[in-house]
């Protein structure tokens, strides 16, 4: 990181011991949330009766009222 105003210390290490735990968790919450969006799109607002997930074949079955 160098520019004409400030010349960066190239020997300095700015690679922090970073955890990506929260970023991955957000992806998980969005993934779960997306199944609710799918239920609303397929069955309408409050129209879904049940959703069953088959994790082996990665299939979700939406039953509407």
């Amino acid at each position, binding site marked *: *990181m160098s*520019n*004409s*105003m*400030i*010349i*960066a*210390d190239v*020997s*300095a*290490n*700015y*690679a*922090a*011991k*970073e*955890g*990506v*735990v*929260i*970023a*991955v*968790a*957000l992806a*998980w*919450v*969005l993934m*779960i*949330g997306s*199944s*609710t*969006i799918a*239920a*609303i799109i397929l*069955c309408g*607002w*409050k*129209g*879904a*009766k049940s*959703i069953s997930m088959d994790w082996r074949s990665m299939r979700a079955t939406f039953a509407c009222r």
Partner: protein
Amino acid sequence: MNVVEQTLGLLSESDFVSLSAGVKLKDTILTDRANGARHYVTKNARRPLRLLGVGMTLSSWLEASNLTEFQAFEIIRFVNGIGCLQIQRSRLQGMRHLGRRAQLRLRGVQLQIPAKRYSATVLGVVNAVLRALRPILVAVLVSFGLAYGANMLTGSYIAGHLVLVGSLAVTTTLHEYVHLYIAQSQGANAQVVVRGLRIGVLHQPLSPVYEVLSALTGPLTGLVAAAVVMALTLAVNPSMFVVLSAGIVCVFHCVSWLPEYGDGVALKKYWRNRHERTT
């Protein structure tokens, strides 16, 4: 708006800007106490950085520092790049600022992610984790609204998300605290840095053995703590979704060991150096 769209969406004119604690300008050198960096500051940038050290609103800083737009842009981008630009604004200003960022994003501007530093204490880690968790909390609340509309807002759906957020808060705090503890036990200065969803500990270099120890034990502590939370959840609430929500946090901590991310990068660097020494 300008100064290159207030440095690509980071700032608004009324924001109070300053340098983080631990970053000081001494003559021509900007020292960063967290990792011992010494950046050389050219003549034109000294007064603006000194003013930034004192802290003032962005508009006052731009007026007093007497810089061209591009010079101001360069300084702000650099200071945020090393994670030491402190930005303070009221909640109302914060809401307006979010709107401006959304506008810039829609125009295809690649926005800068603001970084915030916290002290190397337990409270500092807790505050950092709570800040990083904010987007998750928003996502969970939105997900509850959607689940209501999809007739999925059951007890186990709510409990699963609450367990996930609780487990994340506790185990991430432990994960980061272990990094901090190892750095401090070796006499290294450190600070906790949050940049968007990423939280990390910035510290002075450690010996290779301690770098590896830190990179291994941080995620391991998080993983073990998450496993304990999962076991407790299983004992209290045997719902499949709730247990899965608690258990998945173990996997999230393991992701930190991938070579692309912080802890994995430290491990990769160690193995590469070791391999080079032996060959």
